[in-house]
């Protein structure tokens, strides 16, 4: 399935207007059955020379060139490698092979409640989370009211985080991650938890960022919300980019393929 290939970059070097540039990026995870759990076991195996490494490729030769100010959607089935791609871009994971080039400050929202502590209050968690994102104490103080206001969690701001619903946690996380205009914003499945009103606020904020020149990457299983927010989309399957280009076309092709798979299974069932 080859569509427009704007994102299957053929360039060897990042361009003037690139924000994210990936060249032949692969990620090989060690297979879970091969991970040795204890130090004792490791030493025994080391002596017996029984340590073998089998691996699983979650990303295979990914080439990607995302321009500044682009809002890019990423779709694909479970286990396709979407989160792995986000980790590589956010520097959490150093790729096994290939080159990752990023121009600008990244604000990642890879998982709900990453960097939150359940026993600390919402307010204390804002400090903790923002510090982990690399902001200074002064910067946080300046934005504190802004963050609390945007999250709309009211008096719960003084309550420990474990008393929050998952939607409230998402609000707080989004609110902290987007309090400062990032050059690059990464969102992995975080918008799906909020209610409609909040989602609209998020979309507003993201379009504002785009107008200010930020780049946004959105991973989502909700085709609608991708169509709503993203101009371009890439489709990942088994660690490879199988489609990329304008959102309508890619989503169309993706949905057709899903339909085809489904009817195949339905055929087997009945």
């Amino acid at each position, binding site marked *: 399935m080859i569509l427009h290939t704007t994102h299957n970059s053929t360039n060897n070097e990042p361009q003037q207007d690139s924000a994210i540039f990936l060249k032949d990026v692969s990620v090989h995870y*060690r297979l879970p059955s091969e991970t*040795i*759990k204890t130090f004792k076991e490791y030493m025994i195996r080391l002596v017996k020379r029984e340590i073998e490494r089998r691996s699983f490729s979650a990303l295979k030769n990914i080439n990607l060139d995302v321009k500044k100010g682009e809002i890019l959607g990423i779709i694909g089935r479970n286990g396709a490698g979407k989160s792995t791609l986000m*980790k590589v871009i956010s520097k*959490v*994971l150093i790729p096994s092979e290939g080159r990752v080039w990023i121009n600008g400050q990244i604000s990642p929202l890879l998982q709900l409640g990453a960097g939150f502590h359940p026993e600390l209050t919402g307010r204390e968690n804002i400090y903790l989370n923002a510090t982990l994102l*690399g902001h200074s*104490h002064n910067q946080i103080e300046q934005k504190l009211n802004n963050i609390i206001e945007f999250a709309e969690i009211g008096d719960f701001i003084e309550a420990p985080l474990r008393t929050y619903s998952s939607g409230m946690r998402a609000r707080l996380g989004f609110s902290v991650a987007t309090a400062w205009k990032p050059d690059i914003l990464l969102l992995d499945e975080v918008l799906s938890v909020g209610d409609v009103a909040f989602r609209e606020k998020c979309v507003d904020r993201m379009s504002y960022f785009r107008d200010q020149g930020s780049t946004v990457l959105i991973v989502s299983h909700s085709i609608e919300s991708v169509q709503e927010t993203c101009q371009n989309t890439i489709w990942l399957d088994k660690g490879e980019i199988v489609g990329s280009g304008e959102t309508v076309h890619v989503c169309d092709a993706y949905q057709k393929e899903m339909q085809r798979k489904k009817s195949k299974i339905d055929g087997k069932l009945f």
Partner: protein
Amino acid sequence: MTTIYDSAKRKHPAIEELIALWRYRDLIYQLVRRDIVARYKRSILGVAWTMLNPLGTMLIMVIVFSKVFNRPDNYAGYVLSGIICWSTFSQSTNMSMRSMVWGSRLLNQIYVPKTSFVLSTVLAGMVNFVLSLVPLFLIFAFSGVQLRPSALLLPIQMIFLFSFSLGVALLVSTLAVFFPDVADLYPVLLTAWMYLTPIIMPLEFYQEILDGLLLYINPFYYIVNLFRILMLDGFVPHLQTWIATGVSSFGILIIGWIFFTLKADDFAYNT
């Protein structure tokens, strides 16, 4: 200001980490603060506890060992110095390991310099070290020990203690990320190590074993020995003593730093 990250142009991981830490110095400050505040907020007795705990241990040791050994001069001061140095080292390495295991879950979702958790824990340990000097001075006053000008050199000894603790903390934390059982093995090792070091038993006891070999191969002996010379004996030691202590503690730090940073790229692959 543009920040460009290029995985193809990374410097050696050990250098890269130093640069990253400098950028995230505010994070380190916050983590240290959190460690200390969390410790003392729990109870008003928090501060007192840091001071009373080594005093209690010292008291027991003095009573027990005065029956067993010929008690040397200033035995109370001797034991307390040992305990303060040792507990700073053992607590900060042990806690580093635990905070690294906590942090490694975070490192799966967010980028921060990976040494942050270990570094901040060891720094917080040094703050506790300074606090626990207060009871030491009390005991000195009671037993008539006079501080001499050599005590002004204490900050250098603290740099050695810090370097050595950080080096060991980095080594054990790396292992603990990959092998959870290390967190259980290490305290056992620490206990054995403590008895092999002149912390509570008099120095003579160790000097008699294998001509003092146990002392010379034990880097922690150099550190605690330097502390006692400066604070208790009150003279400035020979150059050899400085060099031996400096080389062993900086050596461990460099080894630990390189080992940690070389393995750190794999942390996120290991879940």
